[in-house]
């Protein structure tokens, strides 16, 4: 008898599933954007920043009356940084919520899973924070667009920086420390690829692979000191970067080597979390800087974000901001958010002025790879307390032209 009851429960559950969509009434004249940012754990900060920035962009656009008669609307579901769950959410967005765009994601693993859904259901996926080059290279599919730099671009900029450095301050040996997963390995491979491409001579004296979120780097630090590299490239990000820097400082590592972290090392949270402990003279970069370029647009963006949230943005925020602008611009051009093929055409080659663009450059989406093309600035840590709680910001900028950073046409992750 009881077993029958459990059968009834299953039936009820299924009925709810079937009836649920009826409750969702389609609203008219809304561009629905389905975002999947993580809101918990280490990456939660990026997720929160992204959602705040996206909503800020939406408020700006809707405040001006929307685009082509449509208002923008963002829904976010905590992806928990889990690919299988994100796939479910993406399918729900498409089938139940009838979103026009898939949006976001911090982790490349989630990005790779969601791009598959995007491909199968022909729904545009605007990628913002995740950096794996694969998505615009061998996993390329026509409905995916990325509006922030990938690791290849960051590493190309890093390689160019090192090339120039060799002319003023000769160096010969290099070591790498990066998290032991795809992101960490990709960066190192891409850096080596770019150094070779730009004809830089170097000798590798050490490669170190702490696990992701490793709490302790002491053994790595002492080992690196023994290797005596001239340059130490770091592929660590976020809290790992913070922990490494904090633990390495008293060992005097940064006086012995030039520390260079061109993809995520210069992200604002590293600076805010290390405060005055961040040594001067580290070579860092990020996909957006709060104090570069010193254009009115960037200053206003940073200020507005601060007013809205009470904190300064990490680069994840600017990616999401750019994504919303790109969507708005595409819909404006096409006139509706439903004609996917026309929207893809509109996004391909789209020029879009972003806070991170210096006055003489406008970002654009490469029609061949659907990767945004942007300049990248690499800076050196200097004392600067204009963005508290950070006590150090980047300065002495070196700016690299966008076109120089693109991968060659035949580049593929497989050729490592």
């Amino acid at each position, binding site marked *: 008898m009881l077993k029958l009851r459990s059968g009834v429960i299953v039936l009820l*559950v*299924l009925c709810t599933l079937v009836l649920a969509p009826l409750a969702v009434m389609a609203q008219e004249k809304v561009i629905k954007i389905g975002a999947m940012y993580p809101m918990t754990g280490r990456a939660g900060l990026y997720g929160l920043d992204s959602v705040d920035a996206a909503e800020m962009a939406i408020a700006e656009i809707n405040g001006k009356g929307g685009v082509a008669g449509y208002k923008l609307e963002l829904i976010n579901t905590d992806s928990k940084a889990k*690919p299988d769950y994100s796939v*479910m959410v993406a399918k*729900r967005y498409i089938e139940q919520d009838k979103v026009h765009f898939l949006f976001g994601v911090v982790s490349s*693993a989630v990005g790779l*899973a969601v791009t*598959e859904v995007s491909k199968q259901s022909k729904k545009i996926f605007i990628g913002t924070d995740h950096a*794996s080059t694969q998505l615009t290279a061998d996993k390329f599919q026509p409905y995916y667009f990325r509006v922030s730099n990938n690791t290849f671009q960051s590493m190309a900029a890093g390689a160019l920086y090192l090339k120039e450095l060799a002319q003023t301050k000769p160096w010969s040996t290099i070591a790498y420390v990066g998290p032991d997963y795809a992101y960490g390995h990709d960066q190192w491979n891409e850096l080596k690829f770019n150094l070779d491409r730009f004809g830089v001579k170097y000798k590798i004296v050490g490669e170190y692979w702490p696990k*992701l979120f490793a709490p302790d780097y002491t053994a790595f630090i002492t080992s690196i000191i023994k290797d005596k590299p001239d340059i130490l490239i770091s592929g660590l990000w976020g809290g790992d970067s913070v922990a490494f820097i904090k633990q390495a400082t008293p060992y005097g590592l940064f006086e012995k080597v030039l520390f260079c972290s061109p993809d995520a090392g210069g992200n604002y949270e590293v600076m805010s979390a290390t405060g005055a402990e961040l040594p001067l003279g580290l070579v860092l970069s990020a996909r957006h800087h709060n104090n570069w370029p010193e254009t009115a647009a960037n200053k206003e963006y940073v200020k507005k974000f601060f007013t809205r949230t009470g904190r300064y943005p990490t680069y994840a925020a600017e990616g999401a901001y750019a994504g919303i602008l790109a969507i708005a611009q595409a819909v404006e051009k096409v006139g509706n958010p439903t004609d996917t093929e026309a929207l893809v055409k509109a996004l391909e080659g789209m020029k879009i002025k972003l806070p991170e663009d210096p006055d003489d450059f406008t970002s654009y989406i490469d029609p061949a790879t659907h990767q945004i093309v942007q300049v990248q600035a690499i800076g050196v840590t200097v004392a600067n307390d204009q963005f508290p709680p950070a006590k150090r910001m980047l300065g002495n900028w070196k700016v690299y032209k966008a076109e120089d950073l693109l991968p060659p046409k035949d580049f593929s992750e497989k050729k490592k």
Partner: protein
Amino acid sequence: MERDTDLKQAVLWLVVFAAFALVPVATASKYHLLLAAHILLWGLFAVAFNMLWGVTGMLSFGQALYFGLGAYSVGLMVKHVGPGWFLPGLGLGLVCSVILSLAVGLLIIRVSGVFFTVLTLAFGQLAWQITFRWYHFTGGDDGVQGIIPPGILGNGLVYYYFILILVALAIWLMHRLSQSPMGVLLRCVRQNPSRVPFLGQSVRFSQLRIYVVSSFFAALAGSLMAGADNSIHTDMLYWTTSGEVILMSVLGGIGQFFGPFIGAGVLIVLQDVMGAKTEYWPLMIGIVMMVMVLLLPRGLVGEFQALRVRLKSLVASR
């Protein structure tokens, strides 16, 4: 009387089977189909897990190892050999799960209680770390995407029915097992392990047997999941996956054969509904867990049954 139960069970089987078979008829949404597929596969995983814990009393915190093994056998076969190798991958996963669970099982059934639990957790984490790290072969944390079942199975609807039939078959087999002498023996192993040898049966071999059986079906669930999601990733091997399946079992009731299946359904639907509404999902699920553990330890199905018995005796006494 016992034949009567048989009949009721047959009816129940038909009802549940029909309900799931009708999902594609009731909704055209691919999302609902995926949700139903997830309930089926997690349900299978949870029922298989509960054969270990609820029935035999062995709490494994590492069944994700076999779930992931199944998924990765399919995924890596498709990735490295070719898209047509989906089904051989499935077969390989099942074979590997038996071999691995035998080997690991022999090592870990030497201890019991919390020690056993911690060892399973340790082995699960080892497997996760290897998969995470060996990224040329496994794809590391990027996982493997584009796992499309071959031929006619590539159609979502066909694949759903494929899942439905296999899951129904697997759960039916496990149900038969739980009703069989072997099933009774396993319950005896949980209730009073020191008596079992004096019935001429070996506790350790019983435990090893069910560990292998449970792992086999976990691998089946995992390998079918690869085709349902079209992608696999290291999270499938992470301890949180094992934790989720424990939660499903407790939610539904570990003392009931069907409890974990119901638990899986409830949790997945809850996650879907609540996850969309709040970013404080972990808090919600944490509170649900506390309530279940402290107030409703018999699970939804078990408490429901207890309530019915109480009501019945209340009516009878009047």
